[in-house]
C-alpha cells in the first residue's frame, strides 16, 4: 500500500508511523474489559470455530515451545498450554499491558501454572533468541502492527528450523454478495454494537477500517514468503472473511 515515507494506516486515516502504536494501544485499552463478550457478539461466536481450525493447523505436540503474539485475552494461549502438556511451554504476549493483564488474570483463574509465561512485547521486535520456538502464532493481531513485514521477519527468526508460523487474520471475502453483506455489517452494525456493549463506537469503527486496509490473501502470502518462510499455504474461512496463513522455517 502506498504510504508516504514515515506514514502508515490507522484504519482509513494516514498517520505518522511513530504514532500508530499508541493509537492502537488506545483502542485496546478501551476495549480490554469487554473484549471477550464483544468477540462473541461480533462474530456470532464463529471466532471460536476459526480458532479451532487454527489450532489443528498448528499441529502442536507435547513438549513444544510456543510463542503467541498479540494474545489479547489468550484464547489460543489457553488451548496451547493444554496441548503442549506439562513439559512444554507457552509464552503469552501482547504489546498492551491492559490486555495482557486481563489475559493473565484469566489464565490464572483457569488454573494454568508452570508451563506458561507472560511477556509484554511488540511483535515487530521480539526480545527472544533465534531458533527458540516450534510455533509462533498471531491471531487477529497482525493488522494492528505498524510494520508487518518486520513482524513476519521477527517471527521467522524466533522459530527453530522445522517450526512454523500461523497468522489468523481478517481477510478479503472471496465473493461479491458476501462482501457487500459484510460491508454493511461492519460499517453499520458493528460500530453500533460496539457503542451499545463496550460504549465505544470509535474503536469498532477502527476495527472495520483496519480490516479493509489489511493486505489480502495473496499479498500477505507474498509477504510471508518474503520473510523467508517456505511451504506457505492459505485457508479461507467463512468465505474469506478470515484466512489462516501458514509458513514453515526449514
Amino acid at each position, binding site marked *: 500500500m502506498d504510504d508516504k515515507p514515515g506514514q502508515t494506516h490507522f484504519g482509513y486515516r494516514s498517520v505518522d508511523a511513530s504514532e500508530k502504536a499508541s493509537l492502537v494501544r488506545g483502542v485496546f485499552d478501551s476495549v480490554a474489559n469487554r473484549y471477550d463478550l464483544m468477540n462473541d457478539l461480533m462474530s456470532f461466536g464463529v471466532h471460536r*470455530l476459526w480458532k479451532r481450525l487454527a489450532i489443528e493447523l498448528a499441529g502442536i505436540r507435547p513438549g513444544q515451545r510456543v510463542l503467541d503474539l498479540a494474545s489479547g485475552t489468550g484464547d489460543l494461549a489457553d488451548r496451547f498450554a*493444554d*496441548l503442549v502438556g506439562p513439559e512444554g511451554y507457552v509464552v503469552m504476549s501482547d504489546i498492551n499491558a491492559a490486555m495482557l493483564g486481563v489475559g493473565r488474570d484469566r489464565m490464572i483463574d483457569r488454573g494454568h501454572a508452570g508451563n506458561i509465561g507472560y511477556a509484554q512485547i511488540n511483535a515487530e521486535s521480539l526480545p527472544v533468541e533465534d531458533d527458540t520456538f516450534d510455533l509462533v502464532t498471531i491471531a487477529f493481531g497482525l493488522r494492528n502492527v505498524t510494520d508487518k513485514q518486520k513482524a513476519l521477519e521477527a517471527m521467522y527468526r524466533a522459530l527453530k528450523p522445522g517450526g512454523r508460523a500461523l497468522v489468523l487474520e481478517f481477510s478479503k471475502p472471496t465473493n461479491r*454478495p458476501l462482501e457487500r453483506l459484510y460491508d454493511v455489517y461492519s460499517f453499520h452494525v458493528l460500530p453500533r454494537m460496539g457503542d451499545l456493549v463496550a460504549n465505544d463506537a470509535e474503536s469498532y469503527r477502527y476495527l472495520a477500517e483496519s480490516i479493509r486496509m489489511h493486505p489480502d490473501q495473496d499479498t500477505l502470502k507474498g509477504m510471508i514468503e518474503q520473510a523467508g518462510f517456505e511451504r506457505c499455504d492459505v485457508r479461507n474461512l467463512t*468465505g474469506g472473511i478470515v484466512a489462516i496463513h501458514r509458513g514453515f522455517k526449514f
Partner: protein
Amino acid sequence: MTIRDLALEGIEQSINGLLALDPVALQRLARLHGRCVGLQLDGIGLTLYFVPGHDGRLQLLGSIEGEPDCTLSGSPLDLVRAGDEDHGHAQLFAGNVRIDGDTALAQRFSEALAGLDIDWEEQLSRLTGDIAAHEIGRGVRAAARQGERMRDVTAANLSEYLTEEARLLPHPFEVDQFLTDVDTLRDDVARLEARIALLEKAGPGDPQ
C-alpha cells in the same frame, strides 16, 4: 469445514459440561495433561482425538499430525450402548475394544470417561452423515430425536456439497451457509445451555 468444527465444538462443550459435574473424573484426566487419545469408530471411518488439559477438561481435535499416544477402537454401537448400562463396570465401550499404543493411558482415559453419562448417539450424530447416524441410532433410541437428526443431516449434506463444489458454485450459497452456520451455532448454544441447566438441577455436584 465449519459444520465439522461446529460439531467438534458442540461435542467438546457437552463433554466438558458433564465433566464439570464430576470432580473425580476431572482429577483423573488432569493427570493425563497433554497426552493424546484417539477414539476410532469402526465402520464410519471417524477418529476423534482427545487431549486432556491441566484441569482435566478435554480438547477435541478432528485431526492431528503424527500418531496419538494411544487409540481405542470399537464399534459406534458399543460406544452408545456402554452409556445405557450401569456405570459399575466402567469402560468406554460396551463390547470389544482394541487398544493401540500406550495401553495404560487408554485404560485410564476410558475409565475416567466411562462414569459420565455421555449421550454418544447424540454427539456422533452431530458429525456423521445419514447412513452412519442411522447405523448408530438403530435399535438404541430410535424415534425420539428423528426430527433433530434430520436437520443435522441436511446441514451436513449441504456443507459437503458446498465444500466439494465450492469453486463452481454461485455466490449466494456461501452467504447462505454463513447465515445457516450462525443460526446453527446459536441453536447449539441454546441447546447446550438448556442441557447444562438441567444437569445443574439434577446433579449433586458443584458445577459453579
